[in-house]
């Protein structure tokens, strides 16, 4: 047996780390997946290789996040290794060591937002974003698409790339009105400089293989074709599975494998998925085989044949309607619309709850409306664990005005004592400093 696409698997199950012993994010989570992959002899397949993760550096985190009070207070070694696992997965592909890679690592990351005060949705650090920023700093890659197939809306990834027109974020998830974190509605389409590069496909409970594949065909693939990314990343959460204990969907291992084949991502990163015995071993096997271009048609769960996973006709109809609406909104984004004059700040006020660490955060986020670049970003934030702090980001493609404005903001902030901590992310000059 020989893989049609060579595949690097960065496998790091963190067998000695848990949020707490009974938490879904515990030592046991990838145990049965490892057993299944080992028993199937996956790592012996010609063209499939296993790798050790790297460990993310302070710079890797500070390039991506505003961490308050600092990186060490909001992360543990497990988070740095998990993020380092995605970096390893990225370098394997970018250095042409393998065609594709799969970071089978934990803990996950897609609920971690631009600002980090602690853990939310089991996530501290957004491991895909750390990877994307690493790639953009070290390789000449401009346009990246992240397709999030976790059952929960990836509100963290959406938040980080809300203003970034070079990163397309598409999430298909269980409708936020029925599941944590509640966001991910159709009308969430990105900030003023990046409208239409955030796409949400909220799917109803009990969506089956059929529904997911409809969403792929009708929304994900056409928008990807339009965006023409240099690189496609799959946030491969596995909690859409019919056996997942904390969600309500009917997706199967075979369905995940088909989706993986259709998406043809360069890099996949494990996100959620907590049916650790009934789903993960089979879904991970399906994704692995599909990425390597191998036959996955024999992969299915032990109870697969007994389950009726046929999708209700009404649900199919509803999903088709959702897809039409998403596409309509997406097309509208291309038309000129009302926005502020360039050189003005567009301001959002956000309240964020960190369910895992029970922290409340208040944010005032200001983005410079700009036609030349992504726009300088300023976030004032305070939480139940931190006094008022400030984050300033000068984007990678910053125009002169936005760059100057960034340093003006920094000077003003440092000359007063309004903020306890100030962090600068100067992507253009690769300066990441906490004051």
């Amino acid at each position, binding site marked *: 047996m020989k893989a049609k696409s060579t595949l690097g698997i960065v496998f790091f199950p963190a067998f000695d*780390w848990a949020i707490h012993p009974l938490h879904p994010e515990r030592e*046991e989570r990838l145990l049965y997946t490892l057993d299944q992959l080992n028993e199937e002899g996956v790592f012996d397949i010609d063209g499939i290789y296993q790798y050790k993760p790297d460990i993310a550096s302070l710079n890797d985190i500070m390039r991506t996040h505003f961490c308050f009070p600092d990186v060490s207070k909001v992360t543990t070694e497990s988070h740095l290794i998990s993020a380092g696992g995605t970096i390893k997965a990225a370098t394997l592909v970018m250095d042409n060591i393998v065609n594709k890679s799969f970071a089978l690592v934990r803990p996950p990351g897609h609920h971690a937002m631009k600002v980090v005060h602690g853990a939310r949705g089991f996530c501290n650090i957004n491991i895909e974003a750390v990877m994307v920023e690493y790639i953009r700093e070290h390789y000449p890659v401009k346009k990246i698409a992240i397709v999030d197939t976790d059952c929960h809306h990836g509100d963290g990834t959406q938040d980080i790339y809300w203003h970034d027109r070079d990163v397309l974020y598409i999430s298909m998830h269980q409708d936020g009105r029925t599941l944590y974190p509640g966001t991910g509605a159709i009308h969430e389409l990105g900030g003023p400089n990046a409208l239409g590069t955030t796409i949400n496909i909220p799917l109803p409970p009990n969506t089956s293989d059929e529904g997911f594949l409809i969403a792929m065909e009708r929304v994900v693939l056409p928008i990807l074709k339009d965006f023409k990314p240099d690189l496609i990343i799959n946030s491969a959460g596995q909690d859409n599975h019919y056996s997942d204990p904390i969600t309500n969907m009917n997706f199967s291992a075979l369905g995940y494998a088909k989706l993986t084949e259709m998406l043809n991502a360069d890099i996949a990163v494990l996100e959620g998925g907590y049916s650790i015995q009934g789903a993960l071993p089979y879904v991970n096997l399906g994704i692995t085989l599909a990425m390597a271009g191998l036959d996955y048609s024999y992969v299915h769960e032990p109870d697969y044949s007994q389950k009726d996973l046929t999708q209700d006709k009404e649900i199919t109809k509803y999903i088709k309607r959702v897809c039409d609406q998403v596409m309509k909104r997406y097309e509208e984004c291309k038309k000129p619309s009302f926005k502020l004059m360039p050189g003005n700040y567009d301001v959002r006020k956000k309240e964020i709850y960190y369910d895992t660490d029970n922290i409340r955060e208040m944010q005032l986020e200001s983005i410079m409306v700009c036609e030349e670049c992504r726009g300088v970003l300023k976030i004032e934030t305070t939480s139940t664990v931190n006094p008022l702090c400030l984050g300033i980001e000068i984007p990678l493609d910053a125009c002169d005005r936005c760059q100057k404005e960034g340093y003006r903001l920094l000077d003003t902030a440092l000359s007063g004592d309004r903020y306890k901590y100030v962090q600068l992310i100067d992507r253009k000059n690769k300066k990441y400093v906490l004051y």
Partner: protein
Amino acid sequence: MIIMYLGLDVGGTHTDAVIIDKSGVVAHTKVVTTPHNLLECISQAFKNILTGIDPSHIKRVNLSTTLTTNAIIENKCEEVGVLVSGGPGINPALYSMGNHYYVIDGQIDHRGTEITLLNLNQLEKATKKCRKKGIKAFAVVSKFSTRNPVHEQYIQQKLDDADFISVGHTLSGNLNFPRRIATAYYNAAVWRLYNKFSYAIEEVLRELGVIAPVNILKADGGTIPLHVSRTIPVESILSGPAASVIGTMALCNITEDAVMLDIGGTSCDIAMFADGAPLIEKDGIRLNTHNTLVRSLKTKSIGIGGDSAIKIDGNTVTAGPQRLGMSMAEGGQNPTIIDALNVIGTINLKDTGRSREGMYALEKKSGISSHNIAQQAITYALDIIYNEVMAMIDEVNSRPVYTIHEFLKGKVLKPKTIYLIGGPAKTLAHHITQRFGWNVKVPQYAEVANAIGAAVARTTVDIELFADTQRCRLLVPNLNVNIRIPQEYDVDNAIEDATNYMMQYLESIGVDEREREIEILQVYSFNMVEGFETTGKNIRVHCQVKPGILHQCRDILKI
């Protein structure tokens, strides 16, 4: 009482034998290997080495043979009926081996739960077909049989008229279905041949008056008693490189990170030591394009040796991997690395004039001076060895780890010593030292280190204990242990049980008490949680008797 140990290693070209006692090596012999009838060269070597020695002094005979390896590579195996129950996953038809491979429906999952019963109709049909073809040797393998062997056991019962059945879970406790299939298949395929051979060897020794127990060397550098090996003949494959590694350990007291280079005529075998212990391959050795679960030392063979032929392509001088016969100095027709060493004056072996002649012929063809050709060929060979050693160290250090503790605190291999053995070892020591900048040691008897290794190797076993307290099950697959345990069973019980099972086994196969040194390699205990309730523990204990040198031999070799 005089105690002597006899070791014999069948190599591709030569068969070496040694006898050692407390004074060291008392006799050694080298005979030409007779690949089509190994019994011939083995008998000859025994006869030679026992000349003038009282055979009753021999207390242990250890053999490393290429019998099973050759049979598999040359496909001189018996027809085997392979009965496999796969269940969902990767299509089991893709792992077909031999001419009589049958997939039977049935599924066991990763916890060992029987999801689907065996399809008895299919089983009946498959066994009928095999019987019709007169097949008498079988391999029986099911997916996850090391978690629950019920399917393998059932199929085994249905084959009561077979001569031999190789049952997957009894060969290794590891997870890896395709490797289990290949291992069980090879085991059945060489069973008859091997058994014939093993009885013949006993006969030969009896005739020579040797009454000592006979052991067979394995690829992991350990031995098993001959009578035990009769049901697991596959364990005897590819033991050659391991013999050299153990030999090196016997000749040098290795306690640090180190590299072994065994340089022969055709090839160079590389092995590694971490704090003096030889490194072991993670899953098992690969033979004839198939990966197996046969435990093995981590070794790598590259096509560079003393007889590697020198080639010139344009301005580039290379050597190997072909061997076109001996060096010119020793009567060959093509200049080799040995000739190059003669030309630059490192050595002065046999007919140095012919070495110079050969190199001069290359000079005329290429326009490069003889001296430069010789120098470049040696540099080329050293570069290849250097790069392979570095790649291997890199590979070992980037092995996947699964815990944060191992990731941050795990052992990093940093060898700075090379132990050099094999025929041309001494001649190359100077160059190897220069190329690596490391400490290079060439032990005495380097040229028969392999046979010495065979003589002094201790018996090794490795087991994987698996306990699931929710299902109240404990398994040690390769010792055929499958018992009920109480729900309160914990990791300490598991470690104790693993040690006890291992002890009992070692005793049952006649291993001396002093040699029952058990090492716990890895212990995992996972809380199994369903919903927000702990339902039990999933415990894994991996332990071994690690490859090394018999205590008695340590005493006599004073190491």
